C-alpha cells in the first residue's frame, strides 16, 4: 500500500501546463522553444558535473548547446520571416502565492526571436573562439560551465513571458557575469571587479524589483501580455502608477545596460577573459536593459512619456561621456569597452526618442560588429600577451585575418557604409532629428565622430607601424579566426535588413508582437538625409582625424590625404582649418584636460562614491555591531545576569548557620501572623 501510493506520487506536484495563451502559428517549433532555454542550462550543469572527464574539458558540450540555440533561433527567424509571423506564449505553472500565479513562460514573437538569433549566433562564434582562446587555461571546465550559464541566463531573460522570469534571467546573467569576470580570482582586482559588477547591478535591480512588484500588484499578474492588454485598454489603475513603474524598470535597465551613472562596472569587467567581454558587450548582459525597455515599450510610449524623456537624457549623457573616455585609453579592450557604453547610450537614447525599431536595430547590428572587435582584440592579445596598444603595432602583416576582420568591425562601428553600423546608427540619428531633439542629434553626431576617431586610433596603433612588443606574434589558429570571419560577414551584411524605403524586414520582425503597431513607435519609410549626412560626415571625419593623428609616418600621409579627398571639396577646403581647430581647439583639449577630467570624474567621483559607500557601510556595520550590539544591547543582557548574581551575594549573609537565629525568625514570623490574625478578627 505504501509503495503504491509512493509510486503514484503527490498529484499536486505534477506541473500543469497551461494552454498556450495565444496562437498565431509556429506550431511545434514555437511550442518547443523552451528548449532554447533549457538546453544551455542542462549543458552548464553537465559541464560542471562531468566536464572534467571529457576530452576537451566540457568545451564541446558548451559549443553544442549554443550551436543548438543558434540553429533553433535561425530556423525560428526564417519561419517567422517567410510565414505569417509567429506570436506564441506557452506557460507551465510552477507555483502560486496568494492570487499570483508563478509560471515558467516563454514568449516567441518577433522581438524574442530576434534576440534568440543574435544570442545564439554571437554566442556560438564566441564559444568556438573560446575553445581556441582558453586552450591551456587553468580552469577551462569552470569557465565553460559559467559561460554556458551566461548564455542560458540571457536566453531565459529574453524568452520570458512574465516579469518574474525576466527577473530570474536578469539576476542569473548578473551572477554568471560575476563568475566570468572573476574567472582569474587569484588576483584580488579580478574578484573585486566581479563584485563591483554584481553589486552595481544589484543596486539598480532594486528599481527593477520594485517596479515589477508595483506592476504585478496593480495588474494582478506578472504576465507581460496581460500588462500590455491593460496598457492598450488605457486601464486607469495602471495609468496612475505607470510613470513610477516605467522609471523604476528603467533604473534596472540602466544598471544592466551600464548607463550613466551606473556605467562604472563595465570597464572593470574587462578583467574577465576576452571571449567573455565579447559576449557580454555584444549579445548578452548589456543588451538586457535595452531589451527590457523594448519589451515594455508600449507602457513607456502610451502611459509614461516622462520615463522616455529620462531614457533620452540618460542615453545621451552616456553616449557622450563614454565616447570621450574611450579616447584616452591605452588598453585595447578598454577602448572597446567604452565604445560599447557609448553605443548603448545610442540605443537607450533611441528608445527614449520613441524609436523602438531603430534602437533594436542598433542592438542587432552592434552585437555582430562589437563581438567581432572583441574577438579581434582577443586574437591580438593572444598573440602579443599584452592588452596595451603601446606594446603592439605592425600586426597587419603578421595577422592578416585578424587585421581585415578588425577593419570590417571598426568600419561598422564607425558607421561606414555599407557596414551594418552605418544603417543602424543612421536610423537612430534620424529618429533624433525627426523627434525634434536637436541637442541630442548634435551630441549623437559628435559621438559618432568620436567613435570613428578612437577606432582609427586603435587600428593604427595596433596594426600599423613597427611592432613594439616582445617575441614574434603569429596569426591565431583557425578555430579562432573562423568565427571572426563569420562575424565579419554578418557585420558587413545585416545592415541591409532595414534600409529605409527599401527593405523593412527588421521592422516587420520586431513589431510582430501582440501589441498594436502604433504603440511601437514610428518607422521611417525613407532616408532622413540630414541625419545621414551628419552621421556619415562625423564618421568619416573621425577616421580622417584619427588617421591624421595616429597613423605612423603621418607627415607623408598628410600629403596623400590632401590629394585623395577632392570629391568632398567643401570639407577639403576647411581641412586644415578643421585639423588645426581640432588639434588645438578640440582634439588637444578633448584628448588632454577634458578627457582627463572625464576620466578623473570617473575614477575620483563615481568610483570614489561607489567605494566610499562600500567603506562607510562597512564602518557603519562595525559601529552597529561594536557600539550598539556588543556594547548596547548585549551589555544590558549581561548586566541583568550580573545584577541577579550581585543581589544573591548580598542576601546570602542571612544564612548564618545559627539554629537559634533561624528559630527566632520562625517565632517572630509566627508572632506577626498571630498579630495579623488578631487585627483582622477584631
Amino acid at each position: 500500500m505504501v509503495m503504491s501510493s509512493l509510486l503514484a506520487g503527490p498529484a499536486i506536484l505534477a506541473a500543469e501546463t497551461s494552454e498556450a495563451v495565444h496562437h498565431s502559428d509556429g506550431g511545434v517549433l514555437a511550442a518547443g522553444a523552451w528548449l532554447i532555454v533549457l538546453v544551455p542550462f542542462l549543458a552548464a550543469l553537465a559541464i560542471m558535473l562531468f566536464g572534467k572527464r571529457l576530452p576537451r574539458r566540457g568545451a564541446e558540450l558548451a559549443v553544442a548547446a549554443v550551436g543548438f540555440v543558434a540553429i533553433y533561433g535561425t530556423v525560428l527567424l526564417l519561419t517567422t520571416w517567410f510565414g505569417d509571423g509567429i506570436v506564441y506564449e506557452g506557460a507551465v505553472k510552477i507555483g502560486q502565492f496568494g492570487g499570483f500565479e508563478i509560471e515558467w513562460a516563454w514568449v516567441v514573437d518577433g522581438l524574442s526571436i530576434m534576440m534568440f538569433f543574435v544570442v545564439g549566433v554571437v554566442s556560438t562564434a564566441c564559444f568556438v573562439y573560446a575553445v581556441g582562446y582558453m586552450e591551456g587555461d587553468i580552469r577551462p571546465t569552470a569557465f565553460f560551465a559559467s559561460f554556458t550559464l551566461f548564455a542560458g541566463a540571457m536566453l531565459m531573460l529574453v524568452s520570458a513571458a512574465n516579469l518574474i522570469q525576466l527577473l530570474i534571467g536578469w539576476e542569473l546573467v548578473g551572477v554568471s557575469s560575476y563568475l566570468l569576470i572573476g574567472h582569474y580570482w587569484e588576483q584580488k582586482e579580478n574578484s573585486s571587479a566581479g563584485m563591483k559588477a554584481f553589486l552595481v547591478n544589484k543596486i539598480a535591480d532594486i528599481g527593477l524589483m520594485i517596479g515589477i512588484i508595483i506592476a504585478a500588484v496593480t495588474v494582478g499578474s506578472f504576465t507581460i501580455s496581460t500588462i500590455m492588454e491593460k496598457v492598450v485598454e488605457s486601464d486607469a489603475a495602471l495609468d496612475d502608477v505607470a510613470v513610477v513603474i516605467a522609471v523604476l524598470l528603467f533604473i534596472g535597465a540602466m544598471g544592466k545596460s551600464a548607463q550613466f551613472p551606473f556605467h562604472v562596472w563595465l570597464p572593470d569587467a574587462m578583467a574577465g577573459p576576452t571571449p567573455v567581454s565579447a559576449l557580454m558587450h555584444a549579445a548578452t548582459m548589456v543588451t538586457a536593459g535595452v531589451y527590457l525597455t523594448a519589451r515594455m515599450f508600449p507602457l513607456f510610449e502610451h502611459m509614461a512619456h516622462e520615463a522616455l524623456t529620462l531614457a533620452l537624457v540618460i542615453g545621451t549623457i552616456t553616449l557622450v561621456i563614454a565616447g570621450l573616455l574611450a579616447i584616452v585609453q591605452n588598453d585595447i579592450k578598454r577602448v572597446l569597452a567604452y565604445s560599447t557604453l557609448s553605443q548603448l547610450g545610442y540605443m537607450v537614447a533611441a528608445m527614449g526618442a520613441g524609436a523602438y525599431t531603430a534602437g533594436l536595430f542598433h542592438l542587432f547590428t552592434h552585437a555582430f560588429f562589437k563581438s567581432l572587435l572583441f574577438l579581434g582584440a582577443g586574437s591580438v592579445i593572444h598573440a602579443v600577451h599584452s592588452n596595451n596598444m603601446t606594446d603592439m603595432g605592425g600586426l597587419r602583416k603578421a595577422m592578416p585575418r585578424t587585421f581585415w576582420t578588425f577593419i570590417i568591425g571598426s568600419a561598422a562601428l564607425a558607421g561606414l557604409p555599407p557596414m551594418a553600423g552605418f544603417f543602424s546608427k543612421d536610423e537612430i540619428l534620424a529618429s533624433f532629428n525627426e523627434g525634434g531633439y536637436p541637442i541630442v542629434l548634435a551630441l549623437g553626431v559628435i559621438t559618432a565622430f568620436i567613435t570613428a576617431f578612437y577606432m582609427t586610433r586603435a587600428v593604427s596603433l595596433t596594426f600599423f607601424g613597427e611592432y613594439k612588443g616582445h617575441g614574434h606574434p603569429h596569426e591565431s589558429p583557425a578555430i579562432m579566426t573562423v568565427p571572426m570571419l563569420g562575424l565579419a560577414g554578418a557585420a558587413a551584411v545585416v545592415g541591409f535588413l532595414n534600409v529605409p524605403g527599401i527593405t523593412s524586414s527588421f521592422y516587420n520582425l520586431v513589431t510582430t508582437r501582440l501589441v498594436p503597431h502604433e504603440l511601437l513607435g514610428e518607422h521611417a519609410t525613407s532616408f532622413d538625409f540630414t541625419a545621414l549626412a551628419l552621421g556619415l560626415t562625423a564618421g568619416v571625419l573621425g577616421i580622417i582625424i584619427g588617421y591624421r593623428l595616429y597613423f605612423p609616418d603621418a607627415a607623408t600621409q598628410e600629403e596623400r590625404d590632401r590629394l585623395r579627398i577632392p570629391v568632398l571639396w567643401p570639407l577639403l577646403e576647411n581641412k586644415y582649418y578643421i585639423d588645426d581647430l581640432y588639434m588645438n581647439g578640440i582634439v588637444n583639449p578633448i584628448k588632454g584636460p577634458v578627457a582627463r577630467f572625464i576620466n578623473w570624474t570617473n575614477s575620483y567621483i563615481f568610483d570614489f562614491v561607489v567605494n566610499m559607500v562600500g567603506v562607510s557601510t562597512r564602518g557603519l556595520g562595525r559601529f552597529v555591531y561594536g557600539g550598539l550590539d556588543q556594547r548596547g544591547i548585549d551589555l544590558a543582557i549581561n548586566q541583568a545576569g550580573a545584577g541577579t548574581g550581585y543581589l544573591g551575594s548580598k542576601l546570602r549573609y542571612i544564612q548564618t548557620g545559627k539554629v537559634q537565629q533561624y528559630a527566632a525568625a520562625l517565632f517572630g514570623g509566627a508572632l506577626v501572623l498571630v498579630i495579623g490574625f488578631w487585627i483582622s478578627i477584631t
Partner: protein
Amino acid sequence: MTIAQFLVVSAALFSIGIYGVLIRRNAVLVLLSVELMLAAVNINFVAFGSYFADSTAGGQVFALFIITVAAAEVGIGLAIVLLIFRNRASANIDELDALKW
C-alpha cells in the same frame, strides 16, 4: 476550673520553652526547652479535649502521640548532641554553624 486557667499555664510554659530555645547556649538545655514547649502543647490538647467533651477522646490521644514523638526526638537529639560533644568537646550551639553560607 475554667479553660482559661489551663491556657495560661500552657502559654507560660510555652514561653519559657521559647525563651530556653532562643537563649540557652547549651544544646542539652535547648532540647529540654523544646520538651517544655511540647508539654505546653500537651496541656492544651488535654484541656481542650476535656472542655469539648470529645467522644473519641482525640485530645488525649494526641497528647499520647506527642509524648511518644517527644521521647523519640529527645533520643535522637541527645544522640546527635553526644556525637557533636565527642567530636568537638563542646555542646555550645553557637559554635555549630556548618550550615553557614
